[in-house]
């Protein structure tokens, strides 16, 4: 169920399965025996996938058109779940909030790690320190980060307003005002997640052949020209893939609003997943929640498919 870091960061394309089969060892069980052992090794995984991945996928689609609760047997209701969703004023609010979160997260979470990685990459000292501390927040459980930052955001004795006051700026109301609540969530989420993007960009930058920079320097290219014509073209693929992954991840934001704001103030941080959670686990309306999952899948499917296409077809 968890999207682990590693799951979200593989950019390498899967290999084409080899057509040629390996030489069979003689004297061992033949084709039939091979298949038997093969499926013996596979059976646990097949059961896990069938029960907790493939079956739920099909069931999720069916549930979207059913009325389901724990009391009555499921009944077919056609498009009623979708109609109910579209009639719910919070539904549009949740999508708007989520898109706003995704957009803000792109502004911060996409640009900052790349710039940070480029700067760190030029350093001749203490690179290890930078790499270490930027990744530390990634290791914190998201609930710990959310609760910790909730305390930082406290308008009274909180760390952030104290820092703002220290440099003679007025304090903000952070999570308590509907105009800054979403921004506050984006800041936490960027702080917590930018470490992995930064390290991936650093690795990509490290892979750019040094001769290119040398040659361009001899040709009289300025620093900006080198960034524009060498650094960016060489990292464009990684940048694009990371952007797609980030969009898919941020559209599913849940822990921060659930722990820090509960959707408030004034529904300003109700996200798609938070509303989905409410439908399923507060109102026990699993059909409508599934309809929402289906819509979320359709919205993100395009990005996922593009990501898979890119990582598969890149030569």
């Amino acid at each position, binding site marked *: 169920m968890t999207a682990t870091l590693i799951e979200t960061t*593989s950019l390498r394309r899967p290999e084409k399965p080899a057509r040629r089969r390996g*030489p069979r060892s003689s004297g061992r069980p033949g084709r039939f025996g091979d298949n038997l052992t093969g499926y013996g090794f596979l059976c646990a995984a097949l059961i896990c996938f069938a029960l907790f991945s493939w079956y739920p996928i099909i069931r999720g689609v069916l549930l979207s058109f059913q009325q389901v609760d724990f009391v009555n047997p499921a009944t077919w209701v056609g498009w009623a779940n979708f109609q109910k969703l579209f009639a719910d004023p919070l539904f549009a609010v949740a999508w708007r909030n989520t898109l706003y979160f995704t957009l803000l997260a792109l502004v911060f979470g996409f640009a900052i790690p790349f710039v940070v990685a480029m700067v760190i990459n030029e350093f001749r000292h203490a690179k290890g320190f930078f790499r270490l501390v930027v990744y530390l927040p990634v290791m914190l459980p998201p609930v710990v980060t959310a609760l910790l930052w909730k305390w930082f955001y406290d308008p009274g004795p909180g760390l952030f307003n104290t820092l703002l006051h220290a440099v003679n700026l007025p304090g903000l109301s952070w999570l308590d005002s509907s105009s800054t609540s979403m921004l506050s969530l984006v800041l936490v989420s960027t702080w917590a997640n930018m470490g992995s993007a930064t390290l*991936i960009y650093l690795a990509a930058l490290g892979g750019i052949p040094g001769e290119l920079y040398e040659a361009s320097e001899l040709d009289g290219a300025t620093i900006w020209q080198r960034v524009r014509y060498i650094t960016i073209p060489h990292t464009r693929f990684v940048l694009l893939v990371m952007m797609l992954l980030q969009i898919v991840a941020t559209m599913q934001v849940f822990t921060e609003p659930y722990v820090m704001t509960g959707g408030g103030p004034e529904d300003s941080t109700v996200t798609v997943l938070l509303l989905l*959670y409410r439908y399923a686990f507060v109102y026990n309306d699993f059909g409508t929640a599934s309809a929402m999952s289906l819509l*979320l899948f359709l919205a993100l499917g395009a990005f996922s498919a593009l990501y898979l296409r890119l990582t598969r077809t890149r030569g």
Partner: protein
Amino acid sequence: MNRTLLSDNQLRTLHGRLGYWVVFSCAFIAFAVAFVLPFVWMLLGAMKSAPELAHVPPTILPEQWHPETYSDAWSFMELAKYFGNTVMIAGGAWLVQLAVDVPAAYALSKLRPVLGNWILGLMLATLMLPASALLVPTYLTITDVPVVHTNMINQPGAIWLPAAANAFNIYLLKRFFDQVPGELIEAATIDGAGRITTMVRVVLPLSRPILAVVSIFAIVAAWKDFIWPLLVLPDPGAQTLSVALNRFAPDTPINLLLAGLVLASIPMVAVFLVFQRQILAGLTAGSLKG
């Protein structure tokens, strides 16, 4: 060292050296404020008394040090129980993932049964789905598992088994096994080793790097996970640290809560400090070169 954007010569000029140290110091200070201060502030905050924490503006160092808050928090929130639960859940998720995914990847790579490529394709296709789109149907499956008709709510299996259906693990492992030369396996077979012996004694020892990466990420993911344990472990006695801390947060004095947050973070920070190399390798595992 590989040549980067700026050359060493450029940095050696007076201008270059000045610019370098200005940027370096600014970056150092910015990083210290952004990534070190929050941790220090949390550690210090946990050692202040609750009334002191309500002060505006806050004190920097505790007026009176209360290191005993950590042990108070430990007993107040019964953290021993939740640490135990989390260790059991994360450890179990790790073992189950290895036990299920390693043989599967081995079969797909080396035994190649009929339809193997189809199965791999169906597994990889699940990566296209956003995890949250499956939340509801998987939850309902857990409450009434097909065929056996058991309710796995509040049981660790509710976390372990779905975690094992991890296409990315299988993909990573299979890709590594693909690189193990077939001659080694043939040689083992000629020496009379069975399929299982060959995998355990010949292939797995060679695969330690990828097993380390898969293991670390399995444990870290299980430790960090929130939404799934929140759904399938409603019984307070069965919950993980993350779920329990979130439940305690509203009615726990802030100093105790902070101490709890510190304690819950220590294992993961320790894992990072010890396994930095493997984690970095995992992050970039073949991620950059096609």
